[in-house]
């Protein structure tokens, strides 16, 4: 039943992340990639929202590293995955919804 939702826009620029979170089920997952990865760490204005999420949250670590954010602490609710981990997530879910 579960859907892997992929978000690639920073919530500081586009509302995609919040729009996604308002429409998914508890058992679904969200993977933050590209510019969305900037809110995977503590100290941002979205930390509270993402810490209170019932869904499993993932961030693509190469995107985090590319933005120089690996020196920050990941949110407690966030799991970092590498590219093979990304592939594994896709196979573990029944469908993928890439939010453009």
């Amino acid at each position, binding site marked *: 039943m579960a859907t892997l939702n992929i978000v690639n826009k920073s919530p500081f620029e586009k509302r995609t992340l919040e*729009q996604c979170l308002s*429409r998914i*089920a508890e058992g679904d997952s969200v993977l933050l990639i590209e510019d969305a990865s900037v809110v995977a760490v503590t100290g941002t204005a979205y930390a509270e929202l993402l810490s209170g999420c019932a869904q499993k949250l993932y961030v693509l670590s190469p995107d985090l590293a590319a933005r120089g954010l690996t020196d920050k602490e990941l949110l407690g609710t966030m799991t970092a995955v590498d590219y093979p981990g990304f592939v594994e997530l896709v196979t573990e879910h029944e*469908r993928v919804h890439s939010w*453009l």
Partner: protein
Amino acid sequence: MEDEYEGGVVKKFLYVNRRAPHGTVYALESLETVLIGAAFDQDVSVLFIDDGVFQLKKQQQPEGIEVKNFSKTFRALEMYDVEQLFVESESLAERGLSEDDLLVDVELVSRASVHELVDQQDVILSF
């Protein structure tokens, strides 16, 4: 064309439209993809959320900005057996729109029930 694909794999496709028409090419590209999915006899549904609900607004007159009025094509979807058009009520209300503003018959869904629709699909294509 129909005969060629008879007996082929039929999947449930949900096209998710989230952008207003005309400002970008997303809405038109989505519509073309919907028609292709339907021409290949797939089980096609379309969901309009966020600014995507503007795609179904009546009375669009994009000729003045030299854009094709593809909103008319939504009325042809029924003939392509795309009969399931879903619109999120909250997205309509936020934009001051109601079902009467739309150019086709749709099924309204609530924001909280969108995931139930998604759960029934094999493939999600977001535009």
